């Protein structure tokens, strides 16, 4: 097609492409909704209705998981008898030898075991809450509850910032601007009830849990994530982060803020995505079954059209679900914009898994692993929302911030969502690379297919450098996740662990595609080409790392663990600074060359070379930290 206008044919071509893509998307929607038969819908509806009807029995009383697990021998006329009977976890048995607790006239005798100790702890809680219940009936309220407490949560500013003091270039949102005392304003409006222990009002309410209850309730929540959303009435979103304003009542009425709100959010947003990726994985896998996809491959459409068209409806589903959940919990556009990258990451990983899997069983397990990984990635850093800038690693933190009304700067937003977005794009790119006959319809182990996918893009040394640069978002996500998980540990454990982990992640990212290229005979197996590719990979890594120095934006380098992961270059003399700036280039090319030389000679040597490279890298990082601090 020759057009006189330079932009005309280009846009026209784009529109044609887009139309093809949309046609495939329509076809995908039609086939997948068309095959859902009425019986499936009816069965699903019945199952959900049954679960809905029975849900109150499960949610009432923390699920009854710990009912009657401790046996107590107590006479009926003993003062403790009623307290024991009213406690679910304790069970009255006749005076037999098997009891864990024996309550007699001369006191309580606990069995000499850990179970006996645990039962004694339960008894103490039981008596305490029994006292409170009985005292509620007293007419002289002032004598029954002689202490009144009014608890206020104050945004002290200094506490949460004393870690990132001075480095808050991108973290201006950390709360210093917010007023005092009412950090939890907006979340208050959204929830009303405090899911884990129903102590919302002041005084009065009958079911004020004894102190120990909080643990039990929260524990069982963790166990079966599936039914987090099944509670009737208002959603059990606990107070997010802060305590949410003011609490009043007797000491027993005070409830501690539940710091794991992000977990509930993670489940609310992530659980529905699991259903989407299950369907998505199936449809991609279907293309590979019985060579069905061949028809589309020979049709006059590009691979991008096919993959894009098949993916589009599921992106739409993710978007729709996210908006619905956000509306449900009262979050705004920021939350939606933050969660969608998680959804894309889900889809991209699933796409790749469906391209690699040899059977449905394998696909199921890879999908479950993906969902566990992404959930961890979304959830773990978000625990620390109020504590450190580390939390911004997870897009979920943005949701929490959105609910709390604290907001976030542009830098923070890019930092939280950027890596996920770029990583999804790269994963889709890898998958499209193997969306071709020789890969789709052959049965090979997953890891070999992964190498195929990497090698598909590599034909020249510069592509090695580019691939390394593109793998950087993964390096980023993994390193940040490692920091987030390890930073809670004491420094003596976390520091060495992080040094080795970071070296491992970076070295693998720099060399795995070089290895794949050699295995696919893309380059001559010689020392020279090993050195060339190693240098290219190291340089690509260095360049990309310098471009994306976003870590500094959010002040993550101020954390000591963060320093181990992201070499600091501030606060040292100019000469040293220049040295520190260029030293990574030398390091990255050297270690990449070491593992590339190993890769030249096959898998065993590659493993050896990689190990050496990791050790060198970890040693270098340690040296830099010792030098700077």
């Amino acid at each position, binding site marked *: 097609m020759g057009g006189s206008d330079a932009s005309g044919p280009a846009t026209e071509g784009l529109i044609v492409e887009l139309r093809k893509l949309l046609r495939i998307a329509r076809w995908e929607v039609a086939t997948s909704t068309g095959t859902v038969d009425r019986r499936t819908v009816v069965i699903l509806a019945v199952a959900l209705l049954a679960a809905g009807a*029975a849900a109150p029995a499960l949610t009432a009383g923390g699920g009854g998981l710990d009912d009657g697990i401790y046996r107590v021998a107590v006479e009926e006329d003993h003062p403790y008898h009623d307290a024991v009977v009213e406690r679910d976890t304790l069970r009255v048995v006749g005076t037999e030898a098997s009891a864990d607790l024996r309550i007699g006239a001369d006191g309580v005798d606990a069995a000499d075991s850990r179970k006996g100790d645990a039962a004694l702890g339960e008894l103490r809680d039981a008596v305490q809450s029994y006292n409170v219940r009985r005292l509620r009936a007293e007419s*002289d309220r002032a004598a029954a509850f002689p202490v*009144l407490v009014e608890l206020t949560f104050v945004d*002290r500013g200094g506490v949460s910032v004393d870690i990132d003091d001075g480095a808050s270039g991108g973290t201006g949102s950390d709360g210093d601007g917010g007023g005092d005392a009412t950090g939890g304003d907006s979340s208050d409006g959204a929830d009303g009830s405090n899911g884990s222990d129903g102590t919302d009002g002041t005084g009065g309410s009958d079911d004020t849990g004894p102190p120990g209850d909080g643990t039990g309730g929260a524990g069982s929540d*963790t166990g079966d994530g599936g039914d987090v959303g099944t509670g009737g009435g208002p959603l059990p979103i606990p107070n997010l982060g802060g305590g949410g304003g003011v609490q009043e009542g007797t000491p027993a009425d005070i409830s*501690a803020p539940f710091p794991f709100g992000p977990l509930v959010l993670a489940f609310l947003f992530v659980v529905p995505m699991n259903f989407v990726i299950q369907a998505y994985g199936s449809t991609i896998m279907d293309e590979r079954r019985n060579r069905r996809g061949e028809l589309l491959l020979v049709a006059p459409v590009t691979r991008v059209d096919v993959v894009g068209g098949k993916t589009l409806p599921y992106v739409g589903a993710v978007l729709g679900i996210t908006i619905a959940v956000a509306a449900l919990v009262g979050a705004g556009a920021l939350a939606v914009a933050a969660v969608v990258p998680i959804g894309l990451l889900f889809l991209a990983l699933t796409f790749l898994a469906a391209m690699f899997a040899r059977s449905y069983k394998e696909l*199921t397990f890879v999908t479950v692993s993906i969902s566990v990984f992404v959930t961890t990635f979304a959830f773990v850093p978000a625990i620390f929302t109020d504590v450190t800038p580390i939390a911004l690693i997870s897009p979920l933190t943005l949701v929490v911030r959105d609910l709390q009304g604290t907001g976030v700067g542009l830098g923070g937003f890019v930092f939280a969502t950027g890596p996920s977005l770029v990583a999804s794009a790269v994963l889709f790119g890898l998958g499209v690379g193997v969306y071709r006959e020789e890969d789709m319809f052959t049965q090979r182990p997953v890891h070999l297919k992964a190498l195929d996918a990497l090698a598909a893009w590599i034909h020249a040394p510069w592509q090695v450098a580019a691939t390394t640069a593109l793998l950087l978002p993964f390096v980023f996500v993994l390193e940040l996740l490692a920091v987030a998980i390890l930073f809670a540990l004491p420094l003596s454990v976390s520091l060495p662990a992080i040094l080795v982990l970071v070296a491992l992640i970076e070295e693998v990212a720099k060399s795995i595609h070089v290895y794949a290229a050699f295995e696919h005979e893309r380059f001559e197996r010689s020392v020279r080409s090993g050195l060339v590719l190693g240098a290219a990979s190291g340089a690509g890594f260095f360049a990309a790392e310098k471009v994306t120095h976003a870590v500094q934006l959010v002040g993550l380098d101020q954390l000591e663990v963060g320093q181990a992961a992201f070499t600091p270059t501030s606060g040292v003399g100019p000469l040293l600074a220049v040295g520190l700036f260029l030293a990574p280039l030398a390091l990255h090319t050297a270690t990449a060359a070491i593992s590339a030389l190993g890769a030249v000679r096959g898998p065993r040597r590659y493993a050896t070379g990689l190990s050496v490279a990791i050790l060198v890298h970890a040693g270098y990082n340690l040296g830099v930290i010792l030098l700077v601090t």
Partner: protein
Amino acid sequence: MSRDPRLTIARREFGALTSEKTIVLALLIQLFVAGFSSFLVVGLVSMYDPGSIDGASVDVGLVGDDGDAVADSLADVDGLDVRQYAEESSARSAFQDGRVDALLVVSEDEDGRVLIRASVPDSGVRSTYTVVQLRDGLEALERDRRAALSDRLSFEPLALPEEASASPYFGFTYTVLVPLLCFLPVFISGSIAVDSVSEELEHGTLELLRAAPITLVDILDGKLLTAAALAPAQAALWLGLLAINGIPVANALPVLALVAAVAAAIVSLGIAIALLAPDRRQAQLVYSVGVLSVFVVASLLPEHPANTVAKLAIGSPTGTTWTLVGGYAVAGVMGVTLVRVAVGRLSIDALGGDR
């Protein structure tokens, strides 16, 4: 070599699982989920239970009229350090500077109650810990005050039993972790069965078997055997690991029998769903929603299955517990029988081919 075609098929199924490393992946997932929930609970418990954190104490700034009596009561509680201030302004600035973790302003209302206005910093995990500690102290204060006013009360509060040195993880281990590790393999086994059957159906490989000297029931027996045997095997592995780590599980054999029975029932359910559903996507959807709702509906039983496992594992089974274990055994046998009868009536023609 065994001659029983069912065993041959079971061995082949198992071989497929191992060659794809799916079992390794499944075990890793379970380990991860268990480790993750333990990590959470250890975190939670260490916040809710001050005793499990060593040396971390909460500094409380105290100011007000009746400060001395309040300070005495608070000081009796472990993990609270009380500092009294004469002026509210100096106490407030100490709080703002972070020299104290909480600020209590004490006054008295017209009924003679102690009125405490407490301020706690809004800083996530740390404020949870502070509030929990503070609540313990204030409850001690409440007890002391109440005891002084006991002549005005008709009910005399019971004296609390001595404080126990209980491990805070004890209850969690038996009521959440052990049931989780028992039922997760069951769920996974059912999922394997669904995949395995729908794969045969969608590839049209069942049709080929018309030529082979085995029946459809034999094939499904083989699949059922593999999937249903995997669950108790994994559960046994977890229980063994727990025992090595100093968490003995009482009644291990009944627990494993329960897991085996439930696995037989759930795997039969999975196979039935896979045979009836038009494709794998819908089969998996119906299966996972179905099992989740079975888990919820099970709470209508006198004991939830998870509670039954907990009671067995902790060593406090009741008569109901044993009855239910028997019930699950019956349910497992019935599930298997039903599926076998139903499959015996199906013809391969009705299933075979690419749908």
